[in-house]
């Protein structure tokens, strides 16, 4: 996809990209190269003693069963966040698309979580589900269900999934709603005349037509679950109990920033970089293709 009409200037395009390029080179490329190099080193926290160890850090990582377990946690976590998040948002969008009265109010209220910082979202949910004080904990206890995410790995995972889904629901909802509203009314009407009920109409017409949106959101949500949920884990569970909520990006932070194992943490970062880049390429390819339609 290229523009046919182009302007000509020897210097102007460079001047235009210069600010962006400068910031990128100074604050992104250069530090990233250093991070790559760091992943081949074993170094003490202060950078006083450095050894070049080739790929030892990576070998250590992949022989560490807990690192591999962290992959599994991350996979389960992102599948849950993306799955529940998309399903809930889609359901809300479908019904919001049907109602006329109050639609605006529903929409406005559903957008609000987008404004909340991850760390703040975690604080709010922890307050609701705090094992001692939480109001929801109290409700569950009085129903005979013992809620204590400090000890129960599944409940801890549930806590961060709920928080992450909650925070992302606005975004998913808006896209689904827009997707639904762009479906030609004539299609739906034709199906209705053929006697298809609302459920059938949804599954045979709306859902297939939404698939590009769904795929786009799937990638976005997985990227979100992989990387943007760090503050949630940090503020809500700190990776515990046991390793139930120790997702990859949190482990990078924990090992690098808290525990100062720079080489090991850099190696984990490189693994993550590879994941982001491949996800990005997938997404980009997909978006490019769609634009050409």
């Amino acid at each position, binding site marked *: 996809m290229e523009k046919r009409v182009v302007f000509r200037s020897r210097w102007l395009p460079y001047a235009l990209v210069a600010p962006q390029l400068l910031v990128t080179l100074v604050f992104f490329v250069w530090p990233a190269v250093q991070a790559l190099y760091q992943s081949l080193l*074993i*170094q*003490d*926290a*202060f*950078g*006083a*003693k450095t*050894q070049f*160890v080739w790929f030892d850090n990576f070998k*250590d990582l992949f022989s*560490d069963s*807990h690192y591999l377990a962290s992959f599994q946690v991350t996979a389960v976590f992102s599948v849950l966040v993306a799955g529940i998040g998309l399903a809930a948002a889609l359901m809300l969008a479908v019904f919001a698309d049907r109602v006329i009265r109050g639609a605006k109010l529903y929409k406005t209220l559903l957008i609000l979580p987008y404004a909340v910082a991850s760390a703040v979202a975690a604080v709010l949910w922890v307050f609701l589900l705090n*094992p*001692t004080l939480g109001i929801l904990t109290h409700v569950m206890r009085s129903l005979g269900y013992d809620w*204590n995410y*400090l*000890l*129960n*790995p599944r409940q801890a995972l549930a806590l961060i999934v709920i928080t992450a889904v909650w925070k992302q629901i606005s975004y998913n909802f808006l896209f689904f709603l827009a997707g639904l509203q762009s479906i030609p009314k004539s299609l739906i009407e034709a199906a209705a005349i053929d006697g298809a009920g609302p459920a059938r109409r949804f599954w045979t017409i709306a859902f297939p037509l939404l698939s590009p949106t769904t795929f786009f959101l799937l990638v976005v949500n997985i990227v979100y679950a992989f990387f943007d949920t760090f503050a949630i884990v940090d503020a809500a569970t*700190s*990776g*515990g*109990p*046991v*390793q139930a909520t120790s997702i990859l990006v949190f482990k990078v932070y*924990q*090992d690098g*920033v*808290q*525990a*100062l*194992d720079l*080489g*090991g943490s850099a190696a984990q970062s490189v693994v993550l970089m590879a994941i982001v880049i491949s996800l990005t390429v997938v997404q980009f390819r997909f978006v490019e293709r769609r634009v050409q339609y």
Partner: protein
Amino acid sequence: MANRIRRFICIASALALAGMATAAQAVTEIQWWHSMTGALSDKVNEIANKFNASQSEYKVVPVYKGQYDESMTAAIAAYRGGNPPQILQVFEVGTATMMAAKGAIKPVYQLMAEEHQPFDPKAFLGAVSSYFSDTSGHLLSMPFNSSTQVLYINDDAFKKAGLDPANPPKTWPDLEKDAEKLKASGAACAFTTGWQSWVQLESFSAWHNVPFASLQNGFGGLGTRLEFNGPVQVRHIKNLGDWAKKGLFTYKGRKDEPLAAFTSGECAMITTSSGSYANIKANAKFAWRVATLPYYADVKGAPQNTIIGGATLWVMKQKNPDMYKGIAKFFTFLSSPEIQVDWHESTGYVPITLAAYDLAKKQGFYQKNPGTDIAIKELTNKPPTANSRGLRLGNFVQIRNIIDEELESVWSGQKTAKQALDSAVKRGNEQLVRFQKANE
């Protein structure tokens, strides 16, 4: 170029500062990064203000930089960026890392000698100074806030259960019996613990005179390996696991979170930091008291002595040697008995110098506040052995995380005590190997 910019910014900010300062003369600013919150942080500011008022050359500026691990990371990042603070408060867990960073720190004993400030390591409590000294007995950092583990009990809950609060549980089996009665009397939570790794394994090992790690708990060198999966520790963790199953022990979190469950009256007993005294005093709406940490009477040598926690002040290496003089003066001021005794009495941390301890005794502080001397009595119970001087482990932050994870798997019944401790030792040792590699 970078230097030029930096110089320019220095000049600019110096000008700005000069403009703001009431005194027009240049005052050398000493940044003190700390992790003290609440009343403690007020106290830190008070100490700095008193020092600043006592002389006019230096100005100590305390900066709260987040929790211990956060402020340490920030300081290391600042050091690597060529811009370290002058004084950094580091928790005991970070001791090995700071000690290994020879090029980045200025050992306190050297600093005080070079600046001709009076400084006698023997003036400090043995249990405190031994934790932070090198193998030849030189104190490397300035002791500041030290605490140890004690048992707090809720008198009202004890009475309700038909127990005598004046006779708190002395041993762990006693504690189990009391917990049963408390539970029978309707207590929602009989017993909990703060800082599980520190209380139930690290200090527990010292208190029972069994090793936590080889080579004198790491004091003997970087080749140290963990050994806390011995029979004494396994027995204790197994007991706690069984109590958790029976509802006698309720797990409330890894760090300080359990304290709120005690002050709210939910939990009747808690083992946690003696530094929580002020907090409980301010918030508990029931009668309570401090008791000695329980032990197993049948373990030979128990009780030995507990080990400390808390933090010390490290001096970061400075480009401008003028700074050192100010820091040394500040440390002399800080370790004076008056400052120390005030710090001790208002915070609940143990007095770190013998002079301060004596002064507190003379003032009758311990009679007026029963229980406040239990911590120091535990620390000085017996002369420290190789198992009870303290711990010096690299990558200790990760090791604590590992221990926390494994203990949680015991409390939730996923692993037996033996399995969990074996696994914690194995995983922790991998961390020690990495630290050794990085620092040898």
